[in-house]
Structure formats: C-alpha cells, structure tokens
C-alpha cells in the first residue's frame, strides 16, 4: 500500500535557527502515527509543513504518492489534508455552523452561501463527534473543550485522507477523550491516516500504531507502538532516562493561611466553595476541564471578585476586589494561559519579573534600573532560566523558561499563598521535572501552594491534600493517603455527590 503522506529529508530554518534537519516521515492508510518530542523538537514545524502553513527549505513532500510543490493551506485542503490545531483556530464572531462550513466548502469567492445546508451539515458532524453544541451559537461563547470538539468536527467533515491532530486532548475531559478516540478509530477504519501529536504518552498505546520521535529538529526514530515502552519513549525524546518525574519533598504543614467559606461568584460560575490551605502545604485542585478550578483561582485572586461568602487570610476576613488587592495581601497566581496572561511576551525578561513588584525596584515611583536588573538576574539564576540576558524579550524563550519567568514574577512578590494553574502544561519533560522540584521547594519554605493540574498523576504525586471540583464547587477533599485516581475521578464526575 503506498503511503498517504511521505516526507523525505525535509529541512526548515527560521532566520538561521534550524527547526528541522533532514527529517523523513510517512503515514499509511488506516494508521495512527504518533509524533512525540519535547517542546521545540520540531513537531509543530513538521505539521505546518504538511498543512502548507510553512514551506520547507529542502527535501520533498508527497501526498497520495504525488510530489507537492507550491504548498499552502488552501492547496492542502485540495490534497485531502485536514488539521486540528492545538489552539482552536475558530472565528469568534462567526457561528459554529459557519466555522465548520468555511473548512468544508470549496474555495471560490463568488460562491453563494446556503445557510440551511450549512446548519444541517454542522448538526450532523457535531453529533458525530458527540458534541451537543448549537450550530447557531457564536464561537466566542464556547468553552475551550467545546471549541476543540468543533475543530475535530471540522476535520471529520472534510473527507480528508490525512488528518493531523496537534495535542487534541490537551483541554478535553476523559469522557471527551473517549469520544475522540472513537472518532479516530472510525476514521482509520475508513482508511484515513491520522498524524497524532501528544504530550500524554499514556494515551499512545491506546490509540497509535506507530510512533516517531523528534529531538532538536532531528529524527530520532520510528517504532511500532506495541513494541515500545514508556521508558523507551522518554529516552527517545530526551536522550536520557529520567528518574522520578514527580519528586515530592516531604514538608510539615503549619497553620491555615488561606481559607474560603461558602465562596461564590456568579460571573465565574463558582458557588459554595469551602476549602483551606496551610503554610508549607501543597493543596492539589483536581477536576475535569470546566469544573471551575481556574475560575475559583480567579475569584481568590480578585480577577472576578466574589459576590458571596468569605475569604479569610490568617483567620481574618479580607475582601479581594482586584488582582492588585490580592497582590497586596500576599496572594500570587501563575495563570494557565501563559502566553496570554502569564508573561508579556514583548517585554524583556527583567521587566516581566519585576512587573508585580515595581515599587520594590523604584524610589518614590522612579525606577531604579540597576536594582531591577539585579533582582531579575537573581531570580533567573535561582530558577535556572536559560536566557543570554535578562533584557531579551520573554517571547524569545522556550515554554518552560517562560513558565519560570512567570513563576519568578510571583516569587518576587514574596507571597504567602501561591496558586499555580497548570504550571507544566505544554512544557517539555526536562523542564517539567525542574518545575516540580521548585514547587516542592516553595512548600518547604513555608508557602501555601495551590496546584491546579489536569494531569492526575501529577496532582496525586505532588499534593499533600487534594480538593476535587465539579460544576463550580468542591465535591470533596482527600488526604494524600486516601487519594487514588479512582477516588478523585469519582468526585470529579460527581458520582453520588449531589450537584
């Protein structure tokens, strides 16, 4: 059987930085071919070459046995290539039906738009991926997982021969992941080939047939998944074997620092939340995506101030009406969407680090650049941020280093409580371990840490206690000793818990 897709010795450079070096890759009909590698290994570049978003500098691309030149996103559609990007690329102001239609309808600007046909097709495809979404809703009103499902519906609808999925499960709940796997199997049964990029190595044995690993833009190898262990994969990706991925430093929790009583915020969809976190303790916050964890963090940090209930700091009730108020009280929040909220990509690393403590690097309102630089360099050293100079824009750093900069900003505020929202999402494995070590250190130094993570093993390994959320409220708090994957999932799915 000829491969659906064949890349031979493909290279690509961006302004002197080699993103891909002579990489070859192929995809057979009816197979799921996984693509793994650390951040910056070249997976995204490879995908974008297949989808026509980038042009290769060297090497050849064949689709369906024919050589492709002069490739672009529109041509890719013509070749039967569909793609589900990691960040949903929907048009926020257009309806779901139109979003799907734009991907499916033939090109040509002078075509007439048939709205009823669009709607019907959208309904059908959404049902196919198990999403209950109104096709007439504006895409801006959808949640992240819903958007992801619309993206998948688009890919399914194109009748593509090659479907590329870039981290499709990153924001999906387990149930949605199951639906996705079913969709993928349906596709492969029809002879479609799927390129599947994922950081979740555990998924691969369940879904993939072959796996290709990239490292630093170079091909490490392609194996059959059935013959590859998790350890093999990690070794292929990082080139060395990692010991414990989640080191846990034992710490003795002190007294309660932050406590929430019956906290509610209608705008954030959070209601009747009661929990507490002690000094030196890591409180894991588990739950499915959409359970209200990030929203709860937003309430505690003053982004969406509470409209009922109490927040107590050191036993004293406080009002947190804005992030500035939260900062003043010693609460820090490292947000989930790092590139949008966590760091300001165009500002230098130094300015990012000091942004929450401008008063500390200034005299009566006037910036002291020497002190600012000193502070930033201190933190860069302590946290191991790899950057030639703290005056480089943060946007030039890798994801893991950006996360460290975000962390540095909040550590600089000398917080009592730090809320970490998905601190290791989209971070490569090496940086992940380092961030875990840092979190452990923080707790050891007496900070109260709230850790939000969708990776259950991470929460279980890192936390002293785990609060589980569902539907905007806390459905249960488990001690480390009683917490198992099953128990957490039960609470997260709210089985037997009145909603």
């Amino acid at each position, binding site marked *: 059987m000829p491969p659906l897709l064949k890349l031979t010795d493909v290279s690509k450079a961006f302004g002197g930085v080699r993103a891909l070096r002579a990489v070859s890759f192929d995809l057979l009909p009816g197979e799921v071919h996984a693509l793994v590698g650390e951040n910056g290994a070249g997976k995204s570049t490879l995908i974008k070459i297949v989808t026509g978003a980038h042009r290769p500098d060297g090497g050849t691309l064949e689709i369906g046995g024919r050589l492709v030149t002069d490739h672009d996103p529109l041509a890719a559609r013509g070749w039967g290539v569909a793609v589900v990007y990691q960040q949903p690329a929907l048009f926020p102001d257009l309806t779901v039906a139109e979003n799907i239609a734009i991907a499916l309808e033939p090109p040509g600007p002078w075509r007439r738009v048939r709205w009823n046909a669009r709607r019907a097709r959208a309904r059908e495809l959404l049902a196919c991926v198990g999403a209950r979404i109104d096709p007439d809703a504006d895409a801006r009103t959808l949640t992240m997982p819903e958007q992801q499902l619309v993206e998948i519906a688009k890919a399914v609808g194109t009748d593509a021969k090659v479907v590329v999925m870039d981290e499709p499960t990153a924001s999906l709940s387990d149930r949605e992941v199951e639906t996705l796997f079913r969709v993928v199997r349906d596709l492969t049964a029809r002879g479609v080939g799927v390129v599947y990029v994922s950081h979740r190595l555990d998924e691969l044995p369940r879904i993939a047939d072959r796996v290709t690993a990239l490292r630093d833009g170079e091909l490490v190898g392609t194996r059959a998944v059935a013959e590859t262990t998790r350890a093999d994969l990690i070794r292929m990706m990082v080139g060395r074997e990692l010991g414990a991925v989640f080191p846990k430093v034992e710490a003795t929790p002190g007294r309660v620092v932050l406590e929430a009583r019956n906290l509610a915020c209608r705008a954030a969809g959070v209601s009747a939340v009661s929990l507490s976190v002690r000094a030196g303790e890591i409180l894991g916050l588990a739950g499915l995506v959409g359970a209200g964890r990030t929203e709860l963090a937003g309430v505690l940090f003053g982004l969406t101030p509470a409209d009922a209930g109490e927040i107590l700091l050191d036993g004293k009730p406080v009002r947190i009406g804005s*992030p500035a108020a939260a900062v003043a009280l010693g609460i820090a929040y490292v*947000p989930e969407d790092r590139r949008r909220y*966590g760091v300001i990509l*165009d*500002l*230098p690393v130094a300015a990012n680090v000091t942004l929450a403590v401008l008063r500390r690097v*200034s005299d009566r309102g006037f910036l002291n650049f020497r002190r600012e*630089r000193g502070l930033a360099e201190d933190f860069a050293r302590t946290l191991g941020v790899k950057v030639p100079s703290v005056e480089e824009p943060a946007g030039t750093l890798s994801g893991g280093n950006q996360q460290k900069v975000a962390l540095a900003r909040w550590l600089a505020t000398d917080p009592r409580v730090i809320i970490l929202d998905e601190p290791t999402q989209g971070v490569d494995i090496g940086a992940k371990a380092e961030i875990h070590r840092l979190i452990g250190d923080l707790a050891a130094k007496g900070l109260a840490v709230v850790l939000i993570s969708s990776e259950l093993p991470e929460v279980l390994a890192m936390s002293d206690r785990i609060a589980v959320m569902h539907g905007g409220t806390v459905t249960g708090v488990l001690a480390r000793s009683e917490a198992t994957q099953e128990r957490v999932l039960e609470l997260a799915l709210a089985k037997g818990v009145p909603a």
Partner: protein
Amino acid sequence: MATPPNTAGVRTSQPGVLLLVLLAEVAVFGLISRNFLTLGNAAEVSRLSVEIGLLAVALTPVIVGGGIDLSVGALLGLSAVAFGWLWRNQGLPVGVAAVLAVGVGALGGTLNGLFVARLRLPPLIVTLGSLSLFRGLAKGFTGGTETYTGFPAGFLAVGQGYFAGVPVQLPIFVAVAAGYWLFLHRTIYGRAVFAIGFSPEGARHAGIPVERRVFVLYLLSGLAASVAGVVYVAHLGQAKADAGTGYELAAITAVVLGGTSIFGGRGGIAGTVLGLLVIAVLDNGLLLADLPRELAGVLTGVLLLVTITIDRLRSRAAAPTLSHQTEGEFEMKNSQLAVLCVAILAAAGIVAASNWYLMSSLRPPAPKPVTIAMLPKSKGNPYFLACRRGADEAAAELGVELLWDGPDGTDPAGQNRIVEGWMTRGVDVICVAVENREGLSPVLRKARAKGIKVLTWDADAEPDARDLFVNQATPEGIGHGLMDTAARVMGGKGEFAIITGSLTASNLNEWRKHIEARLAEKYPDIKLVVTRPCDDQQKKALDETKAVLAAHPNVKLVMAVCSPAVPGAAEAVKQLGRGDVKVIGLGLPNENKPFVHAGVTDTVILWNTMDLGYLTIHAAKQVADGKLKPTASEVTAGRLGRKVIDKGNVLLGQPFAFTKENIDQFDF
C-alpha cells in the same frame, strides 16, 4: 542612575531613520531656503509647534498604552473658550481662569477615561464621539460667534514674548515634555503603561490596576489639551470655538512618525519630539523656500509611509524568528517590497529635485526686485483665487516678485506661521487679509519694526499694525447692502433664512451682525427664521437649504453669505421647484451666472475681487518705494486710475450688484 536597559520593549523605537530625515531636511533647506539656518528661525519653528507639541507629547503615553485620543484638538478649543468666558464674562483674574480652564480639560479627560477604562469601550470611537461633543459644546456655548479677546499684555507675553532669548512657551513645552518623559520612561506608572500596551490582560494578571492607569492616561491627555488651549490663547490673543481644529491628526502624525506603535507597547517621548521637529522643520523650510505649503502635507504623508515601511522591513530583517506566521509570504514579497520602497523614495526625490530646480531657475536675478508677499485668509477659496489673478496682473505690470501663500482654512493660527516665515525669509512688503485681528496684529507690528512694510486688504488689523488698509467695503456696507437687497426682493415683508459658511468665521459673523442690526432697525415686517452653516461646502449648502425650505415653508428668500453657499442654495431652490423663493448672496459672478439667468438667484453682491488684488499690489509697490505714505489722500493704481485714501483706508469703491443685466460682463 544606571543606564536604562536597551531592550526591545521599553526602549523608544529606533529614531535613526528620523534623525537622518531631519538632517537631510536641514541640509536641503539650508541650501534652498532663505535665512533658514538662523537662530531667530529656530526659535520661531519651536514657538509654532508648541500647541501641537503639547498634544503630541500627551498622546504618546495614550498610544503606547494601546489607546488613542482623537478629542484633544476639540478639547483644546473647549478649554480655550472656557478660559475666555471665565476671564471676560465672569471677571476672574487670568490666573484663576487659566486654572479653571485646565479643570475643564480634566473633566473632558475624565469623560474619555470613564468611557474607555470603566466601560471598556473602544477608544477610537469614544474619542471620535467626544471630539464631536467637545467641539459642539464649544460652539454651542459661544453660539460659534463669540470671540474672547483683549487679554492683558502680561498674559499674552506667555504666547508672544521672549524669555532669555527663546519664545516663552518653549520652556513650558520643554518642562511638560520632560515631565512626560520621566513619567513614561522612568516611573513604575510608565512601565505599567508599556505592559498594558502590549497586553492589558497580562498586565491585569500581574496585579496592575489597569483601569486606573488607563483612566489616568486620558485624564493627563485632557489636562495637556487644556494647557495647550491656554497657551494657544496667549499665542493668538483670542479664544474661539474653532481653536485647534484638526490638531489631533497633526499630533497623531508626529507621534507615529516618532516611532510609537499604534498597536501599543512601543514608542517614547523622544521619538515624538523628533517627529514633531521633522514636521515643523519641513513646514518652515518649505515656507522659507517659497514652495507651496501643500507640499508639506504631501511630504508629511510620504514620510509617514516611508518611515513605517522602513521600520517594518528592518524589524523583519532583525527578528525573523518572531514572524514565523507570515514568513512564507514575506519571502515571496521581499523583492516587491524593495521595489516599492525604491519607487516611493525615487518619487519623493524627483518631487524634491524638480522643485529645487524650479526654485533655482526662478531665483531672482540681480538687481533684486521688490518682493511682495500676499496672504489670503485661506487658500483654495475661489474668492481669493480671483484676488490672486488681479495681483498677478499687477505684479507683471510692475515687475515685482509676488509670493502668494495662505493657510489651509481650518487653523486660525495658520496665518501667524506664514507671516513669521516671511519675516525670517526677508520680504519688502507683506499684504494680509487678516483672519484674526488680535492674534495677528502683534506679529505684524514685529514685522514693521523690522522695516517690512505691512498692508492689509480685505479685512483689517489693528490700525497701528499696518501702513495702509486696502478696503473693498466695510462690513456695515455689506450687511446693509445685503439686507436692503433682501427687503427689495421680498417687498418689505415675509420670512427669510441665512446660509452661512461656518458659525465660527469672524468676517461672516461680522456681516451677519450688521445684517441683523439693519433688519431690526428698518424692516419690522421681515423675519429671520433660521441661520444654518454649510461648512463652506456647496453640497452641504444644498442639503441645508432643502431642509430649511421644508421646515419653514413660508420662507421667501435665502440669503447666502459665503461664496460656496450661493450656488448651493440656488440649486436647492431650483431642485425643489420653488419659484416663489429667491436667493441673494455674496459670491463670484461665474459660479452664479446660470442661476441668475434662470431667475433663481436675484442678485449677487460683491466688489470686483480681481481689482482688489490688483489695487493692493499697486499700493504695496508704491509704499515699498516710499512714494506712498499712510497720510496720503489718493493713489494712482494702473488701469484703475485714482483711488481715494481716507484715514489710511484705500477705498476700492462700492460693492457691486450683479444681476441678470450685467453679470455676463464679468469673468471671475
């Protein structure tokens, strides 16, 4: 203090290109312009840029913070009017009035700030609306007609005097600019502004009170606008509702030319000041080279395009890794871009070179003839174009060099700029159709002190600021003439309406005043029902007249007091088929011939405009030669023969009524 980190985000955008442009300007104008490279000129260049400079400096942090404020020019006008009202009508001391006027600016800024920061509305639209609102309030409260003048000399010195050899407002500007520079580049607030400009949500997540910071930016911009308003009043000696019209675009141009990104996050005060200088020097240099002022606008536009294009190309070349997304297209378009840029630069070069060539070929041969500079109220107005034809005729007869230039019609400060330029350039006579008596007179006095002869024409300055006034007709004569004609056409009773140019034009308001006085005095059975402005546009006059006639069906006559309004109003009457309505007005014969013949327009009143220009040049030449003294009682002016001079007024003669019978004899 340690040097600021030279980093992508906080630095001011590369001013290198702009500095080169500035140097090139200085070099070119040093060659082709007269007296360009003098200290006095440098001082004047700076004086004239202060008001726009204040606005531009205050706009810089707003734009760096990702916003925009289009309302600054209108707020300048509102503050100026408030200042004048508080001082004159409320009898407050100048200082107190100035402080309160700045309070008005703070209120205006607060309004913008509330809408943008609190309600999170798009600043472009909010300030577009408040631009209209502020300007409208200024016009509403003054009726558009009120002009506050007669400010004490001590106050006027702020705008017209010198302090240690530099214009007084320059230190004010330098202080404000320095304050803003410190604020934006050296304080934690400024840092917050940069963060907000790059990412408002990111800044909020960093605990920065975004709303409050953004609010303060608009408040500061309102404050600066009102300070500029007070300086403006001191500079021009008058406060009127149209002060600062169009300044917002000039200020934004300076900011953007200075390298501040309209998307926010990048830029700085130093760049803005540089951008301001580039524009001011261009304007001044062209004036001194006697090149058309329109060229300044054209070149400013071209410069803006060229600098941002170069900046874009350089940033792409320097940081290709940051533009992954578009890199594919970029590779394709690279050569096209280069071609395009070369083409633009070449075009600009050709324009400059051809003008230079033109200049050198027109350089006066020795012996140097008398140079007469003639200043209309505005350029691009058919009335003044007719004057110019007469002036050109006289200049050819007498062999004098005639410079003709005028402001673009929106900015009352424009005339000052041109007269200052001519003084620096060195001319023998300046002839001015004065738009703004109180504002221009001090400058004219200064010209006389330098030995330049000054004549006024069309509209007078203060008598001691000029040698002679070539008087075509008194406002009283025009007002009475129009009203008497109207009464004749209407048969002494009924309703009529006035279409005027703009509610703020001072000569039109003067005429309207006399029309209304005459009406009250002599025609009790005639009623003026409505007065509408047409913004000096024919089409608007057409629409306004239609609306007036629909709303007031009893109107029997439309009186159009500015020249574009006469054919516009006549066309409206014709389109509506209202044979019972007649039009009269002040206008040029050529534009009105078809309507006069069709019987729609009864009478057009005007003096012979060409003769006005012709007479002015003849008088100017004789004054320059020392043959004509202000005390003379008559003058002989070429084909016009003898004209009477009465108390320094050279009289052209009575206004002329163009009717069906005689209009074909005239061609202007």
